[in-house]
């Protein structure tokens, strides 16, 4: 049994990772909620968000704003805008025209789109095949509490991630757009007959979900100090798994699923001999157990019959 401090440390690291996973998972679950689709390009939208953030940072540095307090918010805003627009475009090209056909068609279309996004970054981004160092924007250093090392940078990442989740919760629960999203998720036909514009609500949902993926992408860059064009593959699978564990269609389920996945990964690394090599094996084994014994997820009502 490893010392308690190590477990605590790993749990904390797990929550960190989990926040990023959760942000990706919320997108999956929102898309499934409103349109009953699984958007398999979403992982690559997450990657695109990281690259858009990096590009914005490079541009800001060139403009002499690299070190300013504005750098971080502007980076997030630019990346959210890029992924939001690409996300809405993805929905209009790969999802909406295929409504009414087999869900497999949407699966194929979004998988293909993910490939297009990934290859585009590889080909068109300067030296796109290489991992890109991500600038350190957050305060370095840290402190120790009860044998657990806490870095300021990690606290900031955690704070930004949690703030994004709270913002989503408020938007969904409080705003007119949020009411439309919830109504469409429950019953699109009835929602339309209450005056809800379906197309606009679906656009808003994809903008929101894709924007969250950009936040996750930048946080991932800040955490690992590096981004890579293939990061969306694992990021997407983990985000989707987290959404499935939590119950597809349930936003809070996606958040819990993301946190659970992160903590599973890191505690597995601490509890099992050579665990860090097996962390994904353990986490995905748990995903499979969920799919077998609780296919609708922790909070899920809709079953995953579509794909």
């Amino acid at each position, binding site marked *: 049994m490893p010392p308690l401090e190590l477990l605590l440390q790993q749990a904390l690291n797990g929550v960190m990772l989990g926040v990023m996973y959760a942000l990706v998972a919320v997108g999956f679950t929102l898309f499934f909620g409103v349109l009953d689709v699984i958007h398999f390009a979403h992982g690559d939208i997450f990657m695109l968000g990281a690259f858009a953030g990096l590009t914005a940072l490079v541009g800001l540095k060139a403009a002499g704003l690299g070190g300013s307090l504005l750098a971080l918010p502007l980076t997030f805003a630019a990346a959210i805008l890029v992924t939001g627009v690409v996300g809405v475009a993805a929905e209009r090209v790969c999802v909406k025209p295929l409504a009414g056909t087999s869900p497999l068609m949407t699966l194929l279309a979004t998988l293909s789109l993910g490939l297009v996004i990934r290859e585009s970054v590889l080909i068109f981004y300067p030296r796109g095949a290489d991992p890109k160092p991500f600038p350190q924007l957050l305060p370095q250093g840290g402190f120790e509490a009860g044998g657990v090392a806490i870095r300021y940078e990690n606290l900031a990442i955690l704070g930004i991630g949690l703030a994004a989740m709270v913002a989503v919760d*408020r*938007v969904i629960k*409080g*705003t*007119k*757009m949020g*009411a*439309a999203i*919830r*109504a469409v998720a*429950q*019953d699109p*036909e*009835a*929602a*339309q*007959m*209450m*005056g*809800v*514009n*379906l197309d606009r609500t679906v656009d808003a949902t994809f903008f929101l979900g894709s924007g969250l993926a950009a936040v996750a992408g930048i946080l991932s860059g800040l955490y690992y100090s590096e981004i890579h064009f293939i990061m969306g593959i694992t990021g997407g699978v983990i985000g989707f798994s987290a959404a499935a564990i939590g119950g597809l269609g349930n936003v809070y389920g996606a958040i819990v699923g993301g946190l659970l996945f992160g903590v599973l990964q890191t505690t597995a690394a601490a509890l099992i001999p050579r665990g860090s090599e097996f962390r994904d094996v353990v986490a995905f084994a748990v995903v499979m157990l969920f799919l077998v014994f609780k296919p609708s997820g922790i909070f899920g009502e809709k079953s995953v019959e579509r794909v």
Partner: protein
Amino acid sequence: MSAAGALLDVRGLTVRFGGLVALDGVDVAVAEGETVGVIGPNGSGKTTLFNALTGLYAPAGGEIVFRGRRLAGLEAHAIARLGIARTFQASRLCLDLSVFDNILIGMHAGRRTGLVDFVVRRRRFLGEIRAALERASHLLALFNRDLPSRGFERVGQLPQIDRRRVEICRALAAAPTLLLLDEPSAGMNPEETAELMRDLRIVREEMPGLSVVIIEHDMFVIEGVSQRVVAFNYGRKIAEGSFAAVAAHGEVRAAYLGTEAVGA
């Protein structure tokens, strides 16, 4: 009645599903403030009429004119915003959401504050929400004085009759000029049905200008609330007039009792 001054004027409406003709050249007109009952056996096209009126189905022929405007080609949400609201035969409330949330969705088109107000103009935003909750409470209290205090409970926790009331309130929340009620007494026992009839009379008294079209199997409800009755069979209108006249109509009796009973 003359169709010229009608709030709703449906002419020659035809709806097809593949080879099946669900509605076959139907004419229906509804005047302002009038309540029209729609009867007919299952599958006779009653709900299809509602679905065509609300933009869910695209008609294969004929036209729908509402407040002088042709509805052809309008999307469902645009038709709702023109002032047509409806309830559904099987309740389509969001059972996981609160009573107030459900009614707020009914007010959706009327909400003016957006994301910007939510973030920076809180007072404006909260003012709108407060006004909406007051209106929702007012509507709920019309039917059941205890309902407003249960506004933050999940709809799924309410009894059947109150759920139906919430659904009617959700439809009324949009301040419609035409209310379509699809078999509101479905699944109710006689006591609940009596309460429903009382509720519908309250709607009539509180909103005298509102036009109502009600689909019902319960003939007591139809007789009690409608000023005019339209009978459907196999997608065609077979009779129209007062309840007594339609109930006595040979084809209507045949449709309900079977041809042998009448032909014998």
